[in-house]
């Protein structure tokens, strides 16, 4: 080799907004580690596989910047991806749980979200935070899945057993309001989705219109109706 390699000597992390497709390090802000990660690692310890390794890795990786994990996962490192799962799954599961109103469907949706994320990981260029990218992906997967299910089973409501859903919601989110969770889960499919996106997740109306593929006016009408139905349910 005749001379130094300029772009490798200057870390890519020093180049603002530099699109990255490899595992080179960055100097992006380090997100605080999620205290639940270790708990999840302990739960997984008793769940089979090669527990000691998975546990050790998850614990060790909790201090590693999220973006570094993303870069390693892009290279096919499933353990880095497992750590990403450990750091982000709670937020994604809460979204899927409320969007579907069904704990079984939510579990399937979370799987679909992370499998899709794995497949699409190289399309993540770091233009936004990974968590933002993943959350948007989860919304898309959830809407797509529910649309296809809705087409086949349009007569079905999300979960006829709202009590069962409420128990699952409380178990997954101790301290949440059972009556409110139950009221949300009991909404019609589309009303529930837009209400969760707007009032729980905080998306803007125009963002929801783009994600759901309906007009702004329709989204507003659905949300207003959903709020009314939730209020009615709470007063019953």
């Amino acid at each position, binding site marked *: *080799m*005749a001379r130094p*390699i300029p*772009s*490798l*000597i200057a870390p890519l*992390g020093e180049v603002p907004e*530099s699109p990255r*497709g*490899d*595992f*080179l*390090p960055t100097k992006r802000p380090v997100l605080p580690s999620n205290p*639940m990660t270790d*708990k*999840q690692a302990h*739960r*997984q310890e*008793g*769940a*089979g*596989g090669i527990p000691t*390794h998975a546990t050790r890795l998850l614990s060790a990786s909790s201090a590693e910047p999220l973006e570094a994990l993303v870069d*390693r996962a*892009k*290279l*096919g*490192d*499933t*353990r880095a991806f*497992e750590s990403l*799962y450990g750091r982000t*799954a*709670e937020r994604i*599961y*809460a979204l899927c749980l409320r969007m579907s109103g069904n704990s079984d469907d939510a*579990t399937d949706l*979370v*799987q679909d979200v*992370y*499998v899709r994320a*794995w*497949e*699409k*990981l*190289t399309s993540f260029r770091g233009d936004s935070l990974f968590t933002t990218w993943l959350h948007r992906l989860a919304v898309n997967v959830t809407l797509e899945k529910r649309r296809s299910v809705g087409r086949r089973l349009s007569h079905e409501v999300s979960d006829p057993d709202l009590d069962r859903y409420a128990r699952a919601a409380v*178990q*997954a*989110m101790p301290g*949440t*309001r059972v009556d*409110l*969770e139950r009221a949300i889960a009991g909404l019609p499919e589309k009303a529930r989705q837009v209400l969760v996106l707007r*009032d*729980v997740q*905080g998306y803007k109306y125009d963002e929801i219109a783009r994600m759901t593929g309906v007009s702004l006016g329709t989204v507003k009408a659905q949300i*207003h109706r959903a709020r009314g139905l*939730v*209020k009615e349910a*709470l007063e019953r």
Partner: protein
Amino acid sequence: MSEHISLERTHDLIDGLLSSEAAERARSHIALCADCRERHAMLSELATDLRSLPRDATPPPDVWEAISRRIDGTVPSTESDSADVLVLPVATRHEAARRRISFTLPQLAAASMVFAVVSASAIWMAVSQPAQTPGQAPAAVGTVRFVADEAAYDTALDELLTIVETARPYLAPETLLALDQSIAEIDAAIADIGTALESDPSSELLHSMLVNQQRSKLRVLSQVATLTEAQS
């Protein structure tokens, strides 16, 4: 007193969608009108309650295992190819395109060696994909038989390591740290799986995990080798 505020306008007020003047007019009316005040208070309280719901929920403990089974033996795909395309940073590709290309003969020789080695490792990674026979269950259910040529893997690994070691003095400390951490973790996983295989040598799951880790290692090294070649 002005006209009552419609339900839709009350929602808009809560959502912050009214202009500052319209919002001020609405608030003035609400201050004087008990009916509108009650409706506004009710919807405001609901919005506050919804916003304060927990944003995190603990997923069931076996979800990761299910995900792991579905992605095992695969790699993140690129948009143009779902298999073994090595992804270069976009900036690097653009810079390379802009640069005037001028290689000495030794550089060309080194570049062709890198290309050959990276290609060889890509071929190994490709042939180490899960192989299914007719009637065999798909990869997702975990009854996969992996085909791996250990000799080819060792050869590709040795050659890539040689290239990367040669480039090491020219790599940035951050790059070296990331490289070494990645390789160390992959090696630790390979060692763990090797230990597990001693107890259960016929485990197809362990074999598939081993191949997956070996592929990860070649991929990391190939990335560095390719970048080295692109910048030389």
